[in-house]
């Protein structure tokens, strides 16, 4: 694997994972508001 391909793969992995974790936090926040407003928390 060339140095450039290795760099791209490494960068993409870090970017996708960090972005994915950020999206997860946002979705959890939306879900809790939705469940709370709908009386579906527990």
């Amino acid at each position, binding site marked *: 694997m060339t140095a450039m391909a290795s760099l791209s793969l490494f960068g993409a*992995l870090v970017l996708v994972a960090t972005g994915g974790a950020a999206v997860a936090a946002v979705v959890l926040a939306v879900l809790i508001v939705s469940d709370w407003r709908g009386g579906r928390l527990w």
Partner: protein
Amino acid sequence: MENAILTPFTGFTLLAVFSVIWIVLGWHWGRKAKSLDGYMLAGRNVGLALGTATAMATWVTSNTTMAAPQLAFQMGIWGMVGYSLGSMGLIFFAPMAERIRTLMPRGYTSGDFVRLRYGWTAWQVFLLISIFYGLGWLISMGMAGGILLHALTGIDYRIGVTVILVVCMVYTMLGGLYAVIGTDYIQSMLILIGIVVLAAVAYVRIGVEPIHTALTDERPALLNLLMPAALMFLFNNLLFGFGEIFHSNVWWSRAFAFRQGVGFRAYLLAGLFWAPVPIVAGALALVAPHLGMNVPAVDMVGPMVAARLLGVTGAIVIFIVVFSSLASSLDSLLAATSDLVVEDIYRKLLRPRATEAQLRRAAVVTIALLTVAAWVICLDRLTHLAGMIAFTGAFVGSTIWPIAAGLYWRKTNPLGATLGMVAGSAVGITCYFTVGWYVAALVGAAVSMVIVLATTLAFPHEFHWNRLREEDAPQEVAS
């Protein structure tokens, strides 16, 4: 500790603040637990948001936030990705959770399933594995808590272990599964936000290219996609995740606790949300070569990098992330293991006519005893975290096939399930010592699979699913 970034005073202050928050919230939510179902299973009516968060946060253990950086530092890219494959256990458990809820609407534990599905002998073997694993997990997290506090604040290891175990014990005793699930939501948000902030600051401040260049120059093996030990670890961790989630009452109790129709979506989302966490935590450790850091103990690499990059703020953020990871798993484990002991040993073996009040008292006492047992063993720091977890891999790997086949395949028989667990564990442990820690779960699962498949085909059994519907619920009136 010489290199601690926070002072012991700051450490004790943070501990005090979060301990008070968890205990007050645990007590507050615990007031909803009027019945045994409320205390043990949060009323069997947990919704999607809390369900997703509790499954995700529980699977983000201290091992995810501390051992994932360690594995990234030792095994590179595949160490992170391999750890991330632990999410597949949650994803594959999603349909099983729905099926469990449907087949056993009044079930309490995974032990209930094994007893009703396979009978007495398999049940005893399963209980041994499950309780041994639960204790191993408790110990590894107690140790991680002590290590973290010592690394970041200089607080004595034994004091750190003690405080973390006691805090989790108190709020779990006060509120049961309501307290566990409620605090899990807040902890999951703290974990996600904390790791995103740390990784974003590190990679934006330094840049991906300099970090990659330092890795290429100083630790090129970490970028090697064909590292044999790392590839073995990847498959081992995948199977470890399956085994842990399929067998452990931590996950079964949630399947029983989630409202009908929630289990599939909650576990699926939890798996998707969990997958990036070990990669982000591991990516933080890969900054160490760029920083020219000397890492004296590899299981401290994550906290050390965060503290080095962001000083006091970084140390505080990672303190909060790891404390949340610890609490979210410790509380779940205390509650679920206590359920297993109370339902499968106390009620089924010792006091079949116990009332709800007696069972609830037994649960509180069991939570306290489990905490004391873990505390005593934690006081001696036994081994590195990853090795500690992997040791139990053989046992949990051996349960994958008995559980999965038992849930979907009526022909699977008690003999195959029992032999699969015993032989899988024995051979897996042998390989742990003779080959390496990274093959224990892999071998345990493979041996168990061969035995379960062979015995099912050779001696097909006819099981009727309605035998899983046990209706001997405890009496509500106290004696």
